[in-house]
C-alpha cells in the first residue's frame, strides 16, 4: 500500500489516494467530496509510468480518456514497486549508484575532451587554416589594413624606393612579393603586415649604428611575413572566441568578432615563440645569404639602449617581446662562433643605408 494524490482529469480537485496493486489490477481508494471512501480499479495495461526527476514524483497515468493520474513521492512508490509488473517499475533502486558513476565518468571524459580540443586541437586547426589560407586573400587583407594605416604612417616614397632597393638586394624574398616602406614616424619600431608589407620607421633607422642592423631588422620582419605569424595569431584568437561563444550559445557574437578582428589585425602582437622564431630564423637567413648575423645582435643592442630600463620582474614577465637580453643571449649561443663568408655587396648596402639615415 502506498499513499499519493489522485487527479481525475476533469477538474483540478486533489484527492488523497491509497493504492494497492494486485495481479493485473491497481486498486485505488480515494475519498469523495463528502469524505466517503470510493473504490477505483485500473487495468495495469492502461497505465503509463513516468518519473519526474525535478519534482521527485512518480506519475502513474491511466491512458483511457479522460486521462486520470496518481502522483506519488518516490519513496512511497518504491515501497510497492516490487508488486508491479516489470514495465511499471523504475530502475532507480538497483541502478541508481551505477548511473551516477557512469554519468560522472562520461562527463569527465567529455570535459577532458573539451579541454583537449580547446588547448590542442583548436590551435592545431587554426594553424592549419592559417597556413592554407589563400595567398591572394592574405594579400587583400593586408592591403586593406595597410591602406587604413597609410595616412598615419606618413610614407616617404623616395626613401621607400631606396629601402626597397636595399631589401631586394638582400635576396631574402625569392618570390619578390614583399613591399617595403619608409615611414617618417619617430617611434623606434618596424613591423610587418600580412600579405607582404614591411614598414620601417625613421626613428629606428636613425638610431641604428650601421647597415647590418637594417639587414637584421628586415630579416626579422621578413620571417614574420614568411611564417604568416599575424594570420596564425588571428586564427588562433578567432577560434578560441568561436569556441567560447559556442559554449555560451551566442551566435550573434561570432559575426561581431569577425568584423572587429579584421580591424584589430594592426594591434595584434606576436607571441614570445614567434618573436624568438623571427630572431633565430632571421639570423639563419642572414647567414644563408652571406650576411653577418652580428647585425641582428647589434640591432638588439640598439633597441636595448633606447628602451627604458625596466627592473621590475613582473613587467619583464608580462612583456610580449621577450626580454632583449634574453634574445641577445639566444642569438649569441647559436651564432657567435659561426664563420662568415661575407657578401660582396656590402658597400652598396652601406651607401644606401647612409643615404637613408643622413639625408634629411
Amino acid at each position, binding site marked *: 500500500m502506498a499513499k499519493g*494524490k489522485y*487527479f*481525475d*482529469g*476533469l*477538474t*483540478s*480537485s*486533489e484527492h488523497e489516494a491509497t493504492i494497492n496493486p494486485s495481479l493485473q489490477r491497481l486498486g485505488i481508494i480515494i475519498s469523495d467530496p463528502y469524505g466517503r471512501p470510493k473504490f477505483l480499479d485500473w487495468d495495469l495495461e492502461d497505465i503509463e509510468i513516468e518519473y*519526474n*526527476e*525535478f*519534482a521527485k*514524483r512518480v506519475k502513474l497515468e491511466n491512458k483511457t*480518456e*479522460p*486521462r*486520470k*493520474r496518481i502522483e506519488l513521492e518516490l519513496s512511497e512508490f518504491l515501497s510497492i514497486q516490487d508488486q508491479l509488473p516489470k514495465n511499471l517499475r523504475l530502475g532507480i533502486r538497483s541502478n541508481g549508484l551505477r548511473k551516477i558513476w557512469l*554519468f560522472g565518468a*562520461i*562527463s569527465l571524459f*567529455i*570535459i577532458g575532451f*573539451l579541454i583537449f580540443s580547446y588547448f590542442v586541437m583548436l590551435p592545431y586547426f587554426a594553424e592549419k587554416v592559417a597556413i592554407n589560407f589563400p595567398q591572394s586573400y592574405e594579400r587583400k587583407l593586408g592591403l586593406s589594413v595597410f591602406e587604413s594605416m597609410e595616412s598615419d604612417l606618413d610614407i616617404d616614397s623616395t626613401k621607400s624606393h631606396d629601402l626597397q632597393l636595399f631589401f631586394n638586394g638582400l635576396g631574402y624574398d625569392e618570390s619578390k612579393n614583399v613591399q617595403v616602406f619608409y615611414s617618417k614616424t619617430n617611434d623606434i619600431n618596424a613591423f610587418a603586415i600580412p600579405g607582404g608589407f614591411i614598414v620601417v620607421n625613421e626613428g629606428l633607422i636613425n638610431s641604428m649604428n650601421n647597415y647590418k642592423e637594417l639587414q637584421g631588422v628586415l630579416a626579422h620582419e621578413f620571417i614574420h611575413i614568411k611564417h604568416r605569424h599575424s594570420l596564425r595569431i588571428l586564427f588562433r584568437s578567432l577560434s578560441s572566441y568561436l569556441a567560447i561563444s*559556442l*559554449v*555560451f*550559445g551566442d*551566435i550573434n557574437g561570432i*559575426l561581431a568578432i*569577425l568584423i572587429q578582428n579584421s580591424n584589430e589585425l594592426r594591434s595584434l602582437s606576436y607571441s614570445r615563440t614567434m618573436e624568438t622564431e623571427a630572431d633565430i630564423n632571421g639570423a639563419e637567413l642572414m647567414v644563408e645569404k652571406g650576411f653577418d648575423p652580428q647585425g641582428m645582435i647589434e640591432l638588439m643592442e640598439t633597441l636595448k639602449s633606447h628602451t627604458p630600463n625596466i627592473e621590475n620582474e613582473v613587467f619583464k614577465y608580462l612583456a610580449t617581446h621577450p626580454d632583449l637580453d634574453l634574445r641577445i643571449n639566444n642569438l649569441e649561443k647559436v651564432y657567435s662562433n659561426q664563420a662568415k663568408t661575407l657578401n660582396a655587396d656590402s658597400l652598396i648596402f652601406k651607401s644606401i643605408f647612409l643615404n637613408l639615415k643622413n639625408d634629411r
Partner: protein
Amino acid sequence: MSRFYFADTGSTYALPFILNRILTILSLSLYYPWERAIQLKYIYNNIILDGSHFDFLGTGKEMFYGYIKLLVLIILFYGGFLVLMALDFTLYAIMFLYIFMAIGFIFAIPFFIHSGLKYRWAKTQWRGINFGYRGELKEFFNLYVKHGFFTLITLGIYYPWFRCQIQKYITGHIKFGHLHFEFRGKGEDYFVIYIKFILLIYITLGLYIFRFWRNIFNFFTNNTIIVDNEKGEKYKLTSNVTAWSFFELKVINFLILIFTLGLGFPWVLARNMKFLIDNIEIPDNFTTDHIRQTETDYNNAVGEDAIDMLDIGFI
C-alpha cells in the same frame, strides 16, 4: 507559506545543465531542443501553486523540427551576408541585411510568437488540467502588422500602445481549464514609464534602470486578471517588487556568472524564476479546486509548428 512560489535554488539543475550544454556543443547545437525541453521541465516542475507543481509535456523531438526551420533561416541570414561581404558587395550586403530584417520583423516574428505560444501553452499542465492558447494566426498577424506599422511611422513613440495591444491579445487568449486571462494595461500608462525612464536615466547615472524594470514588472503583473466566467468572478494579480530587489537580483546574478565563468547559470536561472514567481501574488479568494478541464481536444491539434523561441516570461 506562500501559495505560488518557485521551489528550487538551482542545484538540482546543475548536473543536467552541464551535461546537456556539452551535448549541445558537441552536436553543433542540434541537441539544443532536447536541452531546452529539460530546462523547461525543470522550470515548470519547480513552480508550485497550492502545493502542486506545473508540468511541461513537450519533448525535444517535437521542438526539433521547428528548431531546424529556425536554424536554416539563421544560416541563410548570416551566410547571405557573409558571402556578399566576401565578394566585396558591401552595399548589397547591407541592403540584404536590412531587407532580411524588415521581412523578418513583419512576417517571421508574429509567426514565431504565435506558434511558440500555441505550442508552449498546449504543453503546460497543472494537476492534469491543460492550459491553451486560442489566438488565431491571421488575427494576431493583422494586429501585429497594423500596430507595428504605427510604431514604425511614429519612430517608436507608439511602441507602448503596440506592446499593450499585443499583450492584450495574447493574454486574452490564454486558457487555464475553464478560466481565462485578461490584460488591462493602457498604452498611456506604459508610455509614462518610458518617459520617466528617458528623463531620469541620465540624471541618476543609469541607476534609474532598476526602478524602470520594477515599473515594467509591476505594470504587467498588476494589469493581469484571471477570469472565471462560471462564477462571474475576476481575480487581479498583484506584485510589489522594489527597485532595490531588482538591483540585488541583477548584481548578484552578474557576479555569479562572472566568478563561475558561466557555470553558475542554473543558480541564476533559479534566482530569476524565484524572483518572477514569488513576487506575483494571487488573491486569497481565488480557489484552485474546481478548475474544469476544457482544453483536452485542443492539446492534440497542436504539433504543426513546435517552435519554442519564447523567453521564460511566464505570463
